[in-house]
């Protein structure tokens, strides 16, 4: 493989991973506020189908993306209402919604399967696109990929460097303390869950009007990606930058599996197709195992030099979730 192919391939990875990046950051916002929106998988399918149909019928890409964000926001609003106002289990509501939205997408999308719809054009940025290597990778993309780049930076800055971001983190970590300091816990949770849902909803059209253009029902290849997103949020330690890296890593692995397939004839294609999922489990194992107590005991038994290296590696990978993630807030 020569240099040019490699650069174009990597540019492709940045583009194909962009919906995952946006959805990961959306879910990160919701979970930072303490709400798990488990409906991601269904939301992406429903918004991919809905935005495709809207764009197909109106001819407007903008309206398509708007519809996608709208679908995501509405589904997230149901999660917020059910869990914050009605105090039902977030996992239960989210899981039902993920199945409901998926079936709804397949049911309503059935007549539009396989139709050729509009597609987001590539918009190179003048001057910047001429920079060698970097120009091709970062500045010859479509609008939504640029959006994903900007979103990573903005989300990181918002969460870790602004006052509202501090409130957001406080609400997810210690809602009682945040409440005592005047934060409106439920309002903050509603806002970020809905906003996060809208971002997850944008991932749908980023697929169906972009990197995986079209709607092909059950063979659209989107089913399951939402669960990967939820796992990447954990891998990313609820940090937009680390989450985005996780998404790019996932995109890179997917690309490699396509590129290397001719050389891996001995591995059946079914195995390569589901490879992300055992990888997901292994990754979660790596980032969580550091929290298990038996690891401490095993570590203590190791000889000192080995122990230090292993402990350092485990600590670097380890993630700790927002303290009140999934726990309803009681005002009294």
């Amino acid at each position, binding site marked *: 493989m020569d240099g040019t192919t490699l650069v174009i391939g990597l540019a492709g990875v940045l583009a194909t991973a962009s919906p995952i990046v946006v959805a990961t950051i959306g879910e990160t916002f919701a979970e930072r506020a303490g709400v798990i929106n488990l409906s991601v998988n269904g939301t992406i399918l429903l918004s991919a189908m809905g935005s495709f149909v809207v764009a197909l019928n109106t001819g407007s890409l903008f309206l398509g993306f708007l519809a996608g964000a709208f679908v995501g926001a509405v589904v997230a609003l149901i999660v917020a209402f059910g869990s914050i106002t*009605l105090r*039902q289990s977030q996992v*239960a509501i989210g899981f039902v919604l993920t199945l409901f939205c998926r079936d*709804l997408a397949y049911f*309503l999308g059935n007549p539009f399967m396989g139709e050729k719809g509009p597609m987001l054009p590539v918009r190179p940025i003048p001057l910047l696109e001429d920079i060698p290597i970097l120009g091709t990778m970062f500045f010859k993309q479509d609008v939504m990929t640029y959006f994903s780049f900007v979103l990573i930076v903005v989300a990181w800055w918002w969460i870790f460097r602004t006052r509202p971001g501090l409130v957001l983190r406080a609400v997810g970590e210690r809602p009682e303390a945040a409440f005592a300091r005047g934060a409106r816990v439920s309002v903050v949770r509603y806002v970020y869950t809905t906003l996060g849902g809208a971002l997850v909803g944008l991932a749908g059209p980023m697929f169906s009007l972009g990197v995986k253009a079209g709607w092909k029902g059950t063979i659209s290849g989107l089913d399951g990606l939402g669960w990967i997103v939820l796992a990447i949020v954990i891998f990313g330690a609820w940090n937009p930058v680390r989450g985005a890296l996780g998404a790019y890593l996932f995109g890179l692995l997917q690309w490699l599996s396509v590129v290397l397939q001719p050389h891996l004839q001995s591995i*059946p294609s079914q195995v390569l197709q589901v490879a992300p999922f055992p990888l997901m489990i292994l990754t979660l*194992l790596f980032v969580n195992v550091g*929290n298990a*107590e038996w690891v401490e005991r095993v570590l203590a038994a190791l000889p000192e030099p080995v122990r230090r290296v292993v402990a350092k590696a485990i600590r670097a990978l380890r993630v700790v979730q927002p303290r009140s993630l999934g726990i309803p807030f009681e005002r009294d």
Partner: protein
Amino acid sequence: MTESGSTTPTPVPEGPTRPGPAEAGGKGRFSRRTWINLGLQLAALVLAFLLTSVVLLVAGAPPFQAYIEIAKGAAESFTDVSNVLVAWVPLLLASAGVLVTFAAGLWNIGVEGQIVLGAVLTTWVLRLLMATSLPPSLIIVLAMLAGILGGALWAALAGVLKTFGGVNEIFGGLGLNFVATALTLWLIFGPWKRPGIGSMSGTEPFPEQLGLPTLAGERLSLWSLALGLLAVIFVYILLERTHAGLRLKAVGLNRRAAFLLGVPTWQYALLAFFVCGGLAGLAGAIQVTAVYHRLIPSISSGYGFLGLMIGMLIAYRAIWVAPVALFFAALNIGSIQLPIVLKLDSTLSGVLQGALVLLVLLVEGARQRYLRRSRTRAV
């Protein structure tokens, strides 16, 4: 101790109608409150049909006619009814199984893959022993036991990942579902492919004597029906009438408190996975020995996920498994012919089932909120 071992969210199923302290003192079995609850559940059912009707109108289909077609598809002939019962059995097993994991506060989303592994191991033992001189009935029993073991071990894997690796069972189970599907596809197109070329229609069918006896001309086996019902009774007794069941529920309601009271919590959590996986594996074994007589790519047919939905819908009370699972089975079978008669996708049943569970959860939340409010006002 692994008590604090897992840091991923431990979603405790906050049972929609698990009676709170304020409700425990209801008078008699059919107090006013019971009737109000029943009324609210009916209201949720009506709302679910209304929501689905809106979906149908959006799709440009006549809602009333669609429901009539579903009813006809589920109950027009004896074969229809028998097919509903065929679908009922795996639903009974899956829902009964997830009630055990729900009781322990676990979201066993991997139940789908556990059904698949049950089917795979059953097929494996059948293939292994079909050429031997063992009596067919013994081969079937051994194969089904292998299926139960397969499901149980696949579930235990998710349990171990959670207990010792901190991998939330939702992700562990879901990932293992995909792995199980890949495994079946690989077997069907690889080592177990039909003579000639592998195809999506599955492995070579087993001879008739290696299947459970079915009613003449139907796919329904009274043996599997009996096994499904026995499983529900078993789970009911386990959860409501035994010490182990009580401890299991203690682990589910408050893991920390149960641990401090001397309940070996992670062992009980693993036991719950094991029991649920075993029942799911039995479902897979039945799909192979009584329904398809071979391994097919989508052997679990989504019954595992439906089992979870049923568990939520009935608020984790074993007594309701049988009727609600029957209703869900009827919806599934009834909507199979929708694509032919109304050119609608058969996922309509999933839309209706999802709407129903969602609305029951929301209506229940609204009821609890109302109770909370009136209690606060009274104070």
